[in-house]
């Protein structure tokens, strides 16, 4: 797994490539928590899953955890470029009910 972080106004844009499972999700969690700690100005998190090849319940767990961090700051978390097989997982897990999905990062930024 590889994580690319960019900043767009009050939003942190996180692009995950590769697989998010038990072995890689701690890296994902720590990277985002570190950014949120250092930059108090971020309120929102945009999660770009366009290059994410795999997520299981361990990966969904750390995504849910970041949703909670962001909600505590009064921000929104939006997933973008979500491949169909991952959208199915999001639906099954109930994450779709609490998290917004947008086609692209630009669409997500427009809603903030």
């Amino acid at each position, binding site marked *: 797994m590889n994580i690319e972080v960019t900043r767009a106004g009050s939003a942190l844009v996180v692009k995950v490539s590769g697989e998010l499972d038990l*072995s890689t999700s701690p890296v994902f969690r720590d990277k985002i928590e570190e950014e949120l700690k250092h930059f108090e100005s971020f309120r929102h998190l945009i999660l770009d899953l366009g290059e994410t090849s795999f997520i299981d319940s361990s990966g969904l767990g750390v995504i849910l955890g970041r949703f909670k961090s962001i909600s505590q700051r009064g921000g929104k978390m939006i997933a973008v470029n979500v491949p169909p097989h991952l959208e199915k997982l999001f639906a099954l897990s109930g994450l779709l009910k609490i998290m917004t999905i947008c086609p692209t990062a630009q669409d997500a930024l427009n809603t903030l």
Partner: protein
Amino acid sequence: MKTNYLRVEFPSLPENISLSRVIVASFAAQLDFTLSELEEIRVAVSEAVSNCVIHGYRDTTGEIRLELAIKDGTLEIVVIDYGCGIDDLALARTPAYSTDPERMGLGLVFMESFMDEMTIESEPGKGTRVVMKKNPERGKDHDKPGD
């Protein structure tokens, strides 16, 4: 009709979870699964093997055994650990139930949803054995060439 098997043993290290997905997906590709079905199989295996690592062996490292078979066009996956076992199987299978507050309690739900059949046997202190089966949607009348 094709018959094949693959038995694998490895230590319960987190980096072996992705390895187990690769192994199962390559083996399963000998049947006529769609890409979407292979994706479901990868998730189911990932959940079962992660459970051995996280719950079965917790802070220790033990051995995980993966038994794959193709019988009458059906993929059978058995995931075994010799770890702590499960006290209350019915409770464990409850959606969103987890003994770990950090986790979502969705592993067994995903395994059930993504496979045609899923059974668990467990003995506290002895370990856990999960059996999962899946048939390609495209049916049994379709064998791969070259066999």
